[in-house]
Every structure is written in structure tokens, then in C-alpha cells.
């Protein structure tokens, strides 16, 4: 690699804008500027110096801020498009069934919905191209941090105290002038700057006052945080790092917790409460009048059991771990598992009671109760009356080829095929009983099963989550916040003061941001020490717009 020799004799790597030793401008571009480009203190960055191999080209692609911003904008626009219609995971069925999903978008959003779904925009955030964009952003973050961060670090670490006069002259804040006693002025300036908590270094009649250099690392720290965050998200794809299940559990039921082997959950009761005029404070009465009922609580009281260590899988021997009331915002937590209150169904049928009645006289031979969780084959009513349950359809959905069908195993619309054995009809009469519907498929019956009552219970919808990536994600978030605060709320400020033998003093100032505050500090030093007056070399009313693309980064 070739290098550039500065007038001062220092050898700078190719691509350096400002001599890393004395501060003279080196590149022709830099020489043509009135003010020094202080972005990386003029240091050479890798992407400017290595341009030959394929690796260099890829590196340079990802290190470009232009590309980085383009990726950010692409993700931004894609994200916005994804909010136009609900994503598949928010529609009924959750997008599990492709045909059903397609129908949903077509039925609800017409031709636009059809196109939206066909283009894959209905599952945009899970699409390969969206993930590729996020991945590219991650690569860009790594590359850009190394590309700029390292040269900047070296440059600031090794900066020389006595920079060349031309370097000072090319700073935005600059002043020069004759003073009576340069040494006294320098001494007082140092005193004042020290009281402003500047770190002062002096050499050969030149002074460098610096503070807050660490603020310059802020962007690199926050990029590191983001990289960690994205890494944490990627970890989820590995088996065992992420559990996401949901289950329905009825009141009174004990079920194995999905995705959590060895854990059992008993639903001891579900509560659904609403705010009413009676149970709430008077201040809410107007709102309750206007809106009607407002939900106040969804709660599942549960008991959690765990099979002891060393027990065989499938063993029913389990110890009580704890009893807990799961409400929204307060999940049950155990061994990294979180169990959330997510959904509920009120009043699901649990049992139905019928009376065996003579159709003509209305006389009853007795009652039977069918427990829908555990339907019996036969119900003996005594005195020679007996009901056989030939078949049970929990979610009756109609007949197909004369056969009754059930849509789901959930008792939403139970139907039964009974055989009634009575003293009058000892061979039995067949009756098909559904809600508000009775069929007698094998001819006229003398008896019927008259519906008496139904027992119901509530069902809780719970979600089970375990996310081992959380610590990585939290760490990433914390580091990001530290970096962004470091870079945003603190400034790197520097003053260079230099005296020459003829009693002339030069003063120059630079800050990473917040020039007004820098000027205020310099004003105080100027007044106290009698420094020559300075000016802001960037004309106050100058249009600061540069034509697009002129600063290549």
C-alpha cells in the first residue's frame, strides 16, 4: 500500500485527508475546502484505501452510509406497506391454512386484498426478502463500525498537540491576533479551560484542550448494541431457544402444559368481570353510561404441578408447584416459562340433561345427564327404561351422505344419536337429538328425549412462552441505550491555542455537535484570558446545502 508523505515528514496511509501528525491538508479535495473535514479527523478509512479485490468491493458496499441509509429507508417503506392490511397472524386461523387465508383476504378486501395476499405482503415481515434486508442492515452495522471506528480511534488517540497553523486556520471557530504577553494569556486560558473541565496538554508553545472524547464512541457502542439485538433475534431460530404454544383449558381440567414437558396445569376457575355503576368509583359513571359495559378483569386461577426429577415420562405423579391467579399483565412464571392469559370462551357446554318422555302423555320415565367430556354408552333410568348413546357429535355441522358430521371436537353444537329402550318399546327406538332439532330416522317413536337443562363452564385460552434469547436481547438494548445517550448527550470538544514568537496567538475550536455551547465556553475563555476575537467561519446566513453526492462517504 502506498503512502503519502506530508511536508512535516510524516508518512500517512493512502486516503488520508488530513496529516495525522501536523494537521496539514493532504488530499486535493481536502485542500480545496475552506474548512477541514473533521468527520473522522481526516483519517483514512479502509473503504477509501482498499478498492481492488472482491472482498474490498463487498466491504466498500456495506461500509457506505449511502447504502446503509438506503437499507434503512427500504425497511421503513416495507414496514409501512405491511400495515395497510392485517398480517396473516392477526386474521382468524392465523394463516395456517393457505386456501382459507386467500379466501379471507379476497372476501374482506376484494381485489386489492387478493393482490396483497398473492404478492406475499400479507406475511411481509416473515418473507425472505424482508429478512434479507434486516440481515443486510446487520452486516452494514458491523462493517461500518469497523471501517470508521478503528481509524477514528487511532487518530484521536495519537493526535498531536502542536498542530500546524494551517490546521487551526481551517477550523470552523478560528481567531488570531497580537497580544501583549502571550505566555500570560496562554496561562490564563489554560486556567479557565481547566475550570471548564478540559483536559489540557501543552507542547512547544501550543496547547490542546480536550473534553468528552468518549462521546465519539457513542455511535459505535450503539451499533454494537443493535448487532447484539439482531443476533439475539436470530438465535430464536435454534431449537430449544424459543417456545411459543397456546392451549385451551376448561374449568376443572388438568392438562399437560404444551411445550413444557413435566408441567401440568389445573384450571380452578375463570373469572370475567366488568365495570358497572355499582362496583366502580363515581368518576367513571359518565363513561360507563356512554360505552356500556367495559371489561375489568380476565383471570384464570390455576394450580401448577410438576413431575419430580427422575420420574418416567407420562407418569401422573406430580407435585404441586404453586397456585396462582393469571391475569392480563401478570403471567405465571416458572423456570423460564411464562404462561399468559390471552383468550377465553364463556359458557361452553359441559353437560346436558334430558328427560325421557312419552310424546302423547308427557309422562317422564326419568332424567339422564350426559357429561360431554365423558359420555357414557348407557344410561339406566330404572324400571326397565334405559337410554343407549349410539354416537356423539360434539360440533354437529349437518349431514353428509345421511351421516351426521362434526366440525370440531369442541362441544359448540352437540348432537346425539340415542336408542331409547322403554317398557313400551323394548327393542329400542332411535332418535337423533341436536339443539332445537329432533329427528326420528327409523320411523315414528313413542318416546322422546326432552331437553331439560345444560351445564356450562368457561374455557381459558393460555399462551406458553419461553424465550432464552431474552438476556441477549436485553443486553443489546441496554448497550444500544448507553451508546445512543453517550453519543447524543455528550460532546467531544477541542480547542487548539498556539502562540508564535512574534506575539501572535491563534485559537481554534471544534466540537462534534452543539456549536452554540462551544462558542459560549470560548467566549468565557476569551474574556477571562484576553484571547484574540474569533469568528464562526461558516457564514451565518450561508445556505449550508451542498449539492447532492458531493461528500462521498
Amino acid at each position, binding site marked *: 500500500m502506498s503512502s503519502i508523505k506530508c511536508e512535516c515528514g510524516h508518512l500517512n496511509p493512502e486516503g488520508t485527508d488530513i496529516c495525522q501528525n501536523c494537521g496539514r491538508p493532504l488530499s486535493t479535495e481536502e485542500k480545496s475546502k475552506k474548512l477541514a473535514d473533521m468527520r473522522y479527523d481526516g483519517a483514512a478509512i479502509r473503504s477509501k484505501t482498499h478498492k481492488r479485490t472482491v472482498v474490498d468491493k463487498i466491504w466498500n458496499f456495506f461500509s457506505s452510509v449511502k447504502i446503509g441509509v438506503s437499507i434503512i429507508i427500504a425497511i*421503513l417503506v416495507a414496514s409501512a406497506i405491511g400495515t395497510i392490511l*392485517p398480517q396473516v*397472524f392477526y386474521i382468524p386461523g392465523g394463516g395456517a391454512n393457505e386456501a382459507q387465508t386467500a379466501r379471507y383476504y379476497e372476501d374482506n378486501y376484494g381485489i386489492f386484498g387478493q393482490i396483497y395476499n398473492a404478492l406475499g405482503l400479507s406475511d411481509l415481515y416473515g418473507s425472505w426478502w424482508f429478512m434479507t434486508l434486516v440481515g443486510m442492515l446487520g452486516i452494514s452495522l458491523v462493517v461500518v463500525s469497523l471501517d470508521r471506528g478503528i481509524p477514528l480511534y487511532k487518530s484521536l488517540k495519537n493526535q498531536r498537540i502542536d498542530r500546524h497553523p494551517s490546521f487551526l486556520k481551517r477550523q470552523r471557530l478560528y481567531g488570531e491576533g497580537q497580544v501583549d504577553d502571550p505566555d500570560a494569556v496562554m496561562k490564563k486560558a489554560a486556567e479557565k479551560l481547566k475550570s471548564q473541565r478540559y483536559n489540557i496538554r501543552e507542547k512547544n508553545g501550543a496547547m490542546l484542550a480536550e473534553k468528552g472524547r468518549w462521546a465519539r464512541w457513542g455511535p459505535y457502542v450503539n451499533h454494537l448494541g443493535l448487532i447484539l439485538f439482531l443476533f439475539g433475534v436470530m438465535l430464536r431460530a435454534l431449537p430449544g431457544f424459543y417456545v411459543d404454544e397456546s392451549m385451551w383449558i376448561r374449568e376443572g381440567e388438568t392438562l399437560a402444559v404444551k411445550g413444557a414437558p413435566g408441567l401440568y396445569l389445573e384450571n380452578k376457575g375463570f373469572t370475567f368481570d366488568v365495570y358497572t355503576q355499582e362496583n366502580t368509583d363515581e368518576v367513571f359513571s359518565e363513561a360507563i353510561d356512554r360505552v356500556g359495559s367495559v371489561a*375489568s378483569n380476565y383471570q384464570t386461577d390455576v394450580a401448577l404441578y410438576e413431575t419430580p426429577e427422575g420420574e418416567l415420562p407420562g407418569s401422573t405423579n406430580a407435585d404441586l408447584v404453586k397456585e396462582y391467579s393469571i391475569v392480563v399483565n401478570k403471567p405465571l412464571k416458572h423456570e423460564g416459562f411464562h404462561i399468559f392469559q390471552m383468550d377465553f370462551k364463556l359458557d361452553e357446554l359441559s353437560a346436558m340433561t334430558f328427560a325421557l318422555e312419552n310424546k302423547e302423555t308427557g309422562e317422564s320415565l326419568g332424567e339422564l345427564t350426559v357429561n360431554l367430556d365423558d359420555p357414557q354408552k348407557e344410561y339406566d333410568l330404572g324400571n326397565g327404561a334405559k337410554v343407549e348413546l349410539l354416537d356423539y357429535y360434539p360440533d354437529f355441522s349437518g349431514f353428509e351422505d345421511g351421516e351426521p358430521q362434526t366440525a370440531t371436537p369442541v362441544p359448540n353444537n352437540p348432537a346425539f344419536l340415542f336408542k331409547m329402550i322403554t317398557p313400551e318399546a323394548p327393542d329400542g327406538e332411535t332418535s337423533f337429538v341436536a339443539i332445537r332439532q329432533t329427528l326420528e330416522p327409523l320411523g315414528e317413536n313413542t318416546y322422546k328425549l326432552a331437553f331439560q337443562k345444560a351445564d356450562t363452564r368457561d374455557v381459558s385460552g393460555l399462551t406458553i412462552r419461553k424465550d432464552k434469547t431474552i438476556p441477549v436481547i436485553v443486553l443489546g438494548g441496554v448497550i444500544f441505550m448507553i451508546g445512543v445517550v453517550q453519543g*447524543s448527550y455528550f460532546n467531544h470538544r477541542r480547542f487548539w491555542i498556539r502562540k508564535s514568537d512574534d506575539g501572535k496567538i491563534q485559537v481554534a475550536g471544534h466540537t462534534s455537535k452543539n456549536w452554540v455551547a462551544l462558542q459560549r465556553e470560548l467566549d468565557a475563555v476569551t474574556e477571562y484570558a484576553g484571547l484574540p476575537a474569533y469568528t464562526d467561519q461558516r457564514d451565518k446566513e450561508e445556505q449550508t446545502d451542498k449539492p447532492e453526492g458531493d461528500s462521498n462517504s
Partner: protein
Amino acid sequence: MNLVDLSGNLLFTAFIAYLVGTILFGGAVKGSKNEASASNKRWGRLGIIVTIIGFLAHLGYFITRWMASGHAPVSNMFEFTTAFGMLLVGAAILFYFLYQSPLVGLFALPIAIVILGYAAMFPRDIQPLIPALQSYWLTIHVITAALGEAILAISAVAGLIYLLKNIDMTKKSKERAWLEFFMYTIVLVLGFIVITVGFRAAGYEAAFDYVDKNGAQAEVVYHMPALFGMNEYSPKTEGTMQPLAEMPAIINAKTLTTFTWSIIAGTILYFLIRLITRRRIAELVKPLAVKANSQLMDEIGYRSVLIGFPVFTLGALIFAMIWAHEAWSRFWGWDPKEVWALITWLFYAAYLHLRLSRGWEGRKSAWLAVVGFAIIMFNLVAVNLVIAGLHSYA
């Protein structure tokens, strides 16, 4: 006087104080040759004192309402928007003390006033919290996010002043047209306020039965003449206007009606202003901005993004993720409101990179700041009211 009444009166006091503050800041800017003159200081000081009084009254509203309801008053559209207005004024006060420029106050206060007016169009009664909101994260997440947005909004205020000063109003240009469009959208909000208050004063009400998107019967009450009817509507109130068109079930025809009425009223208002003054609105406001120091406005715009961005990240993304993890079982779920918070964040990240690395300062920066504010407002208004999601509480 009970707490609720007290709270309402304090809010009204704040509203009046902001109006007076605007006039005083206007005096400060008008009566001065440049940003640092003496009369500017006198009027400016009066302006900031009145603004601070207004802000304290506003804070008083916030605290008393909190005491009355038992939860932070940020749980619905009225409460959130009012709190956002308060924080915007707070941010303007902060920047007054950082840079001693009355101009930021002069432009931030009217925007805060419009925001308060907009908030007042939503139901103001104190509502009990639904289960999803019963968490201390409501207080932490919402207030921090709103504070971040309010500080970021200051960059748009500074950007607006920059643009008003630097865009040539005498020549036709894209910039002039866009700036005028921005002014027009503010007038549209005023149109919304005028039309809502108008029909409310007239006591207009029209009820309809309709079939919602799940196929269930439902009832809706319009407070403006129905331009658009809900899906398979049938009128229940005698003698009211019949809808001009029926909408499919996925479109909320009531919201669309309100939106259309606001556009009609806002556009009429806009043309009335143009007709009476014979000037563009941007041109009318420009004299207030010409004394601005462009460099200072650029600096304020950048600084407010620097201060606001970390606060926004913390409130709208990090605290949001923590709460989502507690309430919805996942820290990120691509809910529209979440996505728009991410979009806002990405946008300001792009702003910072363009500024730092590609030298987008001055005019370009000012435009970006205005667009950022538009995104924040879109997230507040459209995402809550139009795009259905988990955050639709209003």
C-alpha cells in the same frame, strides 16, 4: 369544586395562557430587529412567563385528573393527545432556556393549541382501565414515548421556521407548494374542530343499524350528517340525511364521514383565508420567521433530534417491548402501532446518518424534520383511528 372540575378548569387556563403566550412571543419577534434585541428580551420574557404559567396549569390538570381516576391520564385519545400537547410546550420551554429564542415558542404554542383543540373533540369522560392497560408500564411507556415525540416535534418547529425564512415565496417551486400543503393540513385540523363543534352545538344525531364485518347486527350514532353509510345500514332516526353511498363492512363509514366533513370544512376555511388575505398562508406567516437566524434554527432542529431520539427509543421501543412481553407474551408482534413506532425510529436514524455523513444540513434537514413530525402525527391519528390493531383504544 371536585377534582374533575378543577382538572377541567386548569386545562382551560392552560389553553388561554398558550393563546396569550403566542401573542406575547409574537410581540417579541415583531418588535425586534434581530433575535437578541432589548424589546425582544422584554416581550420574550413575558411570553415565557405566561407560557410557564400555562404549562404549570396544564401539569395541574394532569395531576388532578390522575388523582381523580387513579391512573395516569394517558389511556385514551383525549388524554394522550392532551398530554402530548403539554409535553410539546414543556419541550418548547426547555429549548427557550437552551437557546433564548422566542421564535420556537411563537411557532410551538399555536401547534400545541391546535393539538389541544383536536384532543377536545374526543370523549372527555374519565374511563376505567381495561385489563390490557392495567399495568404501571402504561404510565412509564406512554409518558416516555410522548415526551420523546414532543422533543422530536421541536425539530419540526425549528425546521418550519427555517423553511419559512429561506423559501422564496415569490417564485413558483415545489418547496413552496409543499410548505403550503403543510399549512393546509393544519387548517384541515381546524376544519375538523370547527365542524365537530358546529354539529355538536346543533345537537345533530342520526342513528343507524348496520351489519358489521363479522356479520352481526350493530348500531351506530353519527354526530354529523352521514355522507357514507355503514354496511347494509338502515336509518333509525327520522328526518336525518340519508347517506350518499354505502361502504363495505371493512370501512368505518362514520370515520370516513367525519374525515370528509373535515376536509370540506378545512378546504372552505383555507380558501376563505386565501380570499380575504389574497396571500398564501405560508406567505402570511413568513414575516414572523424572517428574523430567525437560520444557523440557529438548524442547530435547534438537530439538537432536538439528538435529545429526543434516545428518549423516544427508550419510551416507544424499549419500554414498549418490555410491556408487550408482560402483557401480550411477546416483545414484538408487528402490531401497526409498533411498526409505526419503528418507522419513526428508522426515519430519525436516517435523518442522523444523512446529516452526519452526507452533510444534509440546513434546508434538507429542515424538510426531514417536518416529514418526521408528519409520521408522528400519522401514528397518533391514522393508526389509532383507521388501521385496526391492538392499540385502538379511542
